[in-house]
């Protein structure tokens, strides 16, 4: 039943294993380590699935060991929890100290523990099922009012009507936002329908509303920019006046070079976030840096002094007796930490999961006499926060773009996100950074829905070209815009843009997409099609730092849609996160944690303002210290 049971140290060395089938399970265990333990997702369940195998594991924090059992996913083994605990006890009894060089023969004990566990589970299975108590039954959960049968109402009981009511309420806000400018009759009809629903909640009404919502969203998708309807009617002369797709000649004014001082400030790698994160990044003076460096120099020697005293104390720590920490003892400290995290704008489920994971990693650990539980919990939490925020792979966009340039193809980045998070603004900032570092950029305007999106990008293009005129860069225009107006298919435009970039030897292509809600299925489908068809190098999710619990929902649904609607076996999901509006939050930086925890992907850029130079890289220590403050 159990294919592979292994005991290994946290340093990666296998102490003992039992391999029934002789296959190599190292890839499975490695993905367990990488996917769960290092991602701080070790919650109560301690269960991990991969392909057709499943792994149940247990951490031993006292001896720094991991016990893992691999079995086939389809077989449900319910004795594994007890089995692993028993094995841990037996192992500890036999070998109290862990020395890596010794031989560990655990075969006999393992067999006895396994047979005992199997017997116990068999016995439990055979026992007759106990009757449910009243409190557990369904009846106690229903309200009295719900059980009163009303002959007037149709087959639905109050509970289903209530759930439909909830469904209706959820549906009406999206339908109202998804609508483009509707005429008065539509609005009146909508209001009539809502009134009808409120009075008589039935299944039919719910179906109706769902159908109309689907209709509306398809309508809005087809219509795009609706032609203006004048009250007194219009004729073909008005069409020329209303044409917004090209700039009128008067608009081609000389762009005032007000931002010339920004030129040259964004070269090289993006600067890290400031430790205090309060100075406005606009004043990027040298004096500012020097002042802060001086402060740091003064702070550094004072930080070193306590070390000598702690060195002495640690000598005594070994002599005085220690006690182990149990989950009950950790609970109050963890509760406090969890509330602290939630007050710093971390999503509540994420905070709960993090505290759970910290509890798992501290359970059974020795507590030195001069340590308190609160300080241990704090240290463990800081360590796991640092681990979550540290990227799990190397992010170096300049290096990868250089590599693509050498291979003769453009480096493509697609920006996606919900409405109003700052995609177009941050796209312009990243474009400025890239042209400062001598890359040619093509912006693809795939936001064919929002009014003024294309014009906004055109204005940015003009500004950026004015800041870096072609004369300075071997007569090449640094930024170009590829657009096809409004109402067209975004995926098609992106494909043509990338082909154009390839033909004209442009280095980087930045694709701007329309903002969309994560629940909106047709829009998510179109985004997934855009990504699948164009195969970008980087898919960046733009999220604002102000978001709270919504971040979890957004990212989960985005990732899921990208995975579901792509017919590929290896769908291209979100590769990185751009955290925007970072200057608006002082130290409530919890959104960073929520987003990186949910996706496991690193934060690539941080937007700290609304001018071109307000782009920074994340500084893990600064964020963690402001979270734990």
């Amino acid at each position, binding site marked *: 039943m159990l294919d592979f049971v292994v005991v290994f140290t*946290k340093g*990666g060395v296998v102490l003992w294993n039992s391999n029934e089938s002789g296959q190599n399970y190292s890839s499975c265990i490695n993905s367990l380590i990488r996917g769960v333990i290092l991602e701080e997702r070790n919650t109560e369940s301690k269960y991990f699935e991969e392909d057709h195998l499943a792994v149940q594991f247990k951490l031993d924090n006292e001896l720094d060991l991991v016990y893992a059992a691999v079995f086939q996913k389809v077989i449900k083994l319910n004795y594994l929890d007890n089995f692993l605990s028993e094995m841990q006890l037996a192992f500890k009894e036999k070998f109290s100290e862990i020395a890596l060089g010794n031989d560990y023969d655990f075969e006999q004990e393992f067999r006895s523990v396994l047979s005992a566990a199997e017997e116990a589970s068999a016995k439990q299975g055979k026992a007759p099922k106990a009757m449910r108590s009243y409190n557990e039954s369904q009846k106690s959960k229903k309200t009295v009012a719900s059980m009163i049968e009303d002959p007037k109402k149709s087959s639905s009981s109050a509970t289903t009507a209530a759930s439909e009511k909830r469904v209706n309420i959820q549906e009406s806000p999206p339908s109202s936002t998804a609508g483009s400018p509707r005429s008065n009759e539509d609005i009146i009809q909508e209001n009539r329908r809502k009134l009808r629903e409120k009075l008589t909640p039935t299944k039919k009404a719910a179906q109706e509303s769902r159908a109309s919502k689907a209709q509306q969203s398809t309508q809005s998708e087809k219509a795009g920019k609706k032609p203006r309807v004048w009250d007194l009617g219009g004729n073909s002369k008005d069409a020329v006046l209303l044409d917004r797709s090209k700039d009128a000649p008067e608009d081609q004014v000389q762009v005032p070079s007000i931002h010339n001082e920004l030129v040259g400030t964004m070269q*090289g790698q993006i600067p*890290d976030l400031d430790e205090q994160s309060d100075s406005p990044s606009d004043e990027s003076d040298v004096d500012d840096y020097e002042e802060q460096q001086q402060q740091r120099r003064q702070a550094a020697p004072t930080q070193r002094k306590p070390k*000598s005293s702690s*060195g002495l104390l640690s000598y005594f720590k070994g002599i005085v007796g220690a006690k182990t920490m149990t989950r009950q003892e950790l609970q109050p400290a963890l509760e406090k930490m969890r509330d602290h995290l939630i007050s710093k704008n971390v999503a509540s489920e994420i905070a709960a999961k993090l505290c759970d994971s910290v509890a798992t990693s501290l359970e059974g650990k020795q507590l030195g006499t001069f340590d308190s539980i609160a300080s241990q919990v704090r240290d463990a939490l800081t360590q796991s926060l640092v*681990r979550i925020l540290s*990227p799990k792979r190397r992010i170096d966009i300049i290096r990868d773009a250089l590599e693509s340039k050498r291979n003769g193809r453009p480096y493509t980045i697609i920006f996606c996100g919900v409405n109003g998070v700052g995609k177009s603004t941050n796209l312009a900032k990243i474009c400025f950074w890239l042209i400062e570092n001598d890359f040619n950029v093509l912006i693809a305007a795939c936001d064919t829905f929002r009014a003024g999106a294309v014009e906004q990008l055109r204005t940015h293009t003009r500004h950026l070209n004015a800041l870096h005129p072609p004369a300075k860069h071997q007569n090449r225009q640094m930024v170009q815009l590829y657009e096809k107006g409004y109402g067209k298919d975004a995926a098609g435009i992106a494909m043509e843009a990338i082909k154009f970039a390839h033909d004209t030897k442009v280095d980087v292509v930045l694709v701007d997409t329309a903002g969309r809600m994560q629940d909106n299925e047709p829009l998510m489908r179109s985004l997934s099609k855009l990504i699948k068809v164009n195969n970008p190098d980087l898919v960046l999710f733009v999220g604002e730092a102000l978001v709270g619990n919504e971040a979890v929902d957004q990212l989960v649904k985005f990732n899921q849609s990208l995975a579901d609607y792509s017919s590929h076996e290896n769908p291209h999901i979100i590769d990185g996160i751009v955290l925007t509006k970072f200057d608006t939050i002082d130290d409530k930086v919890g959104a960073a944690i929520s987003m990186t925890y949910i996706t496991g992907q690193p934060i690539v850029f941080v937007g700290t303002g609304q001018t071109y130079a307000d782009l920074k890289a994340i500084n893990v220590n600064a964020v963690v210290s402001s979270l734990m403050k």
Partner: protein
Amino acid sequence: MDKLNEKTRERTPVKLGEVNFTPILIALLVGFIIVAIFVILRRRSAGRRDFLLTGLSEAGKSAIFMQLVHGKFPETFTSIKENVGEYYSGQQAATRLVDIPGHYRVRDKCFELHKRNAKGIVFVVDSVSVQKDIRDVADFLYTILSDSATQPCSVLILCNKQDQTTAKSSQVIKTLLEKELHTVRDTRSRKLQSVGDDEVNKPIVLGKPGRDFEFAHISQQVQFVESSAKDNQLKQLTQWIDRLL
């Protein structure tokens, strides 16, 4: 009885002003001196005497560690924590060997903890996949070499997994790394003064700025050797460690 009373009367209570302070002061002074000597000795003994095993994930560091310290070759998985052990070379004293996990999330923190005590750094490279991972390898190697705390260390680049047929030789790896490090240096040299950096850990630009990057130009002594942990071909590594001890 009278004599007893006299004796008790003679033992008058000691007034604070008359107390002789000097013995107390001498005792305190001696105590301080002992504690100071103790602290200084501990500091000095914690000087550079460690050898660090670093490299990317799956390069073979934990296997090499087990071979050197315990003479075994068990199966290993991705390390979460560092492995620390004593290595006894034949003639001389022992030295501490620290195996730093290669996984991106843990490696920086771990390296920070141990870099100040490092006398020598062994950078393990997987000779089979080095071409594919050259960018990650060069990035990590550059970070290690340009760190101010590792300037006095000697560096050995160990081309592991030579038992495989498609493994590249150390010469090829050396040229590959030099070219890649040149590009990495170019990209990083244009870095702005990052505001979050503290003055102590300011990264250093390696080599001579105008010319191509070569390992001979940097302040650490860098050597390339080949090895295979599986076949226990670690003789060159042990010779290098012995030479440094």
